[in-house]
């Protein structure tokens, strides 16, 4: 209990301390590239709350969420098929290993030339890039389901559907979750990159535009917002993961202390 309290106060305190430090150290700054935090925050409020909120912030977030959700559903679904259908495995395995080797951001220019600068391009980039970590983790997770559990499912004659939903999916859950966490980071990176490379809308585009027009405070405000979004998204993911996989977290903790 006590340790938890300490951890929490460290988790909250350290960033606050950093912000305070940033505030005091930058307050008298005359360096154009490092404006005072107070000015950045002013610009932050002016830009994002709530001028460009719907036009850019919400747009970026919507792309991120939609692309990530699609990537997760397709990744897990395709992962099941590849892990369980031998033919699919022979056909798709080499293809996947080829694509996973390409850095996700490098895919963006291809999409721009293929489908232009629209929202579809950004969504597709995010989905496709975020697909692979989840897909590969799902395949791994299902292939490593304990044969003991498979035998139990067979003895009690579970149907194929019951096996999928009630045995394979939960058993592969920890694998899938770590894949999804990587996917989330990739989706976030590609969201920003796709906006910077091929768009005039979105947080990424606004930030780059600010930099190119020497509005350094605006640029910092954009980076600050991106940082906050990335941090919040990861935190949310952790909270949900620890809730859904409470059994896994608990058993691991017990195994460590025992």
């Amino acid at each position: 209990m006590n340790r938890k309290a300490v951890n929490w106060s460290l988790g909250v305190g350290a960033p606050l301390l950093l912000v305070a430090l940033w505030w005091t150290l930058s307050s008298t700054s005359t360096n154009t590239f490092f404006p005072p935090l107070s000015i950045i925050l002013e610009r932050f409020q002016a830009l994002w709350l709530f001028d460009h909120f719907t036009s850019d912030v919400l747009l970026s977030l919507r792309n991120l969420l939609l692309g990530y959700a699609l990537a997760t559903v397709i990744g897990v679904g395709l992962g099941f098929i590849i892990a369980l259908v031998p033919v699919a495995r022979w056909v798709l395995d080499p293809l996947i290993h080829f694509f996973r080797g390409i850095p996700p951001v490098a895919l963006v220019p291809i999409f721009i030339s293929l489908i232009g600068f629209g929202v579809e391009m950004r969504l597709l980039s995010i989905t496709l890039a975020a697909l692979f970590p989840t897909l590969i983790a799902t395949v791994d997770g299902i292939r490593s389901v304990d044969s003991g559990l498979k035998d139990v499912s067979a003895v009690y004659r579970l149907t194929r559907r019951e096996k999928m939903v009630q045995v394979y999916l939960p058993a592969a859950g920890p694998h899938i979750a770590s894949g999804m966490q990587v996917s989330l980071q990739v989706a976030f990176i590609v969201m920003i990159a796709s906006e910077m490379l091929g768009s005039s809308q979105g947080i990424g585009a606004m930030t780059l535009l600010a930099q190119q027009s020497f509005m350094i405070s605006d640029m910092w405000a954009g980076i600050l917002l991106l940082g906050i979004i990335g941090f919040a998204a990861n935190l949310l993911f952790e909270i949900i993961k620890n809730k859904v996989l409470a059994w896994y977290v608990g058993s691991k903790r017990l195994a460590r202390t025992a």
Partner: protein
Amino acid sequence: MAEANVSSDATVRLRVDGLAKSYGTGDKAKVVIEDLTFTVNAGEMVCIVGPSGVGKTTLLKCLAGLQPATRGQASIDGRTISGPPPEMALVFQDYNRSLMPWLTVRKNLMLPLRHLRLPAAEAKERCDSALEAVGLSHAEHQYPWQLSGGMQQRVAIARALAYRPEILIMDEPFASVDAQTRFDLEDLCLKIRQDFGMTILVVTHDIDEAVYLSDRVVVLGSKPAKVLKIVDVDLPAPRDQITTRSLPEFARQRTDVLSLIKRPA
């Protein structure tokens, strides 16, 4: 041929007929079971004893339809086993690999019952009585990994009991429980056979346990496995941990079995 056998085998439930099993093929084939033949009658309790590594688990996996026999066959009521039979439940030796770690004890019991689509009240009643029978009612909301090995094995047994199979097969089910619990579970076995008329096949390496539980003991020996002898145990019913085990007859039977196993091959 099957027709002719029906009347004479009216009480035979499980028949193992010239069963052989090897792992791998060709030069690398490893013969684990050479040739096994025995039967288990309806409502009978049969124990299989044999040294570890002889192929007992391999045999049970063939009986449960989890893997095909290389030669010969096993059948239930004259039907050859080619996949997991609906009337059978199997309690595995590796208890820690046979329970779902993401489900609580009660939900582990419910998993096969949900497949059976029982009315909720009946499923609940079966879970309650199975947990009660293995003495784990208090642990129903815990996860398997929070329990000791012996308790986990009892959960696996409870899951099989709640399923109410006609034929129950258990692979060294009491190896990891303490002596007191072991006696209780042995008596539970005798009781469920009585109450539900289950046909029960238990693998054990404890000879006393085999003699105490069984109507017959199948003694396996030598690698690859074959039946050394089938010993009829005629100890009076009802059996009791104290009186039955102190009978001179009990001592004689266990010496019989022991001498078979100890005999140099």
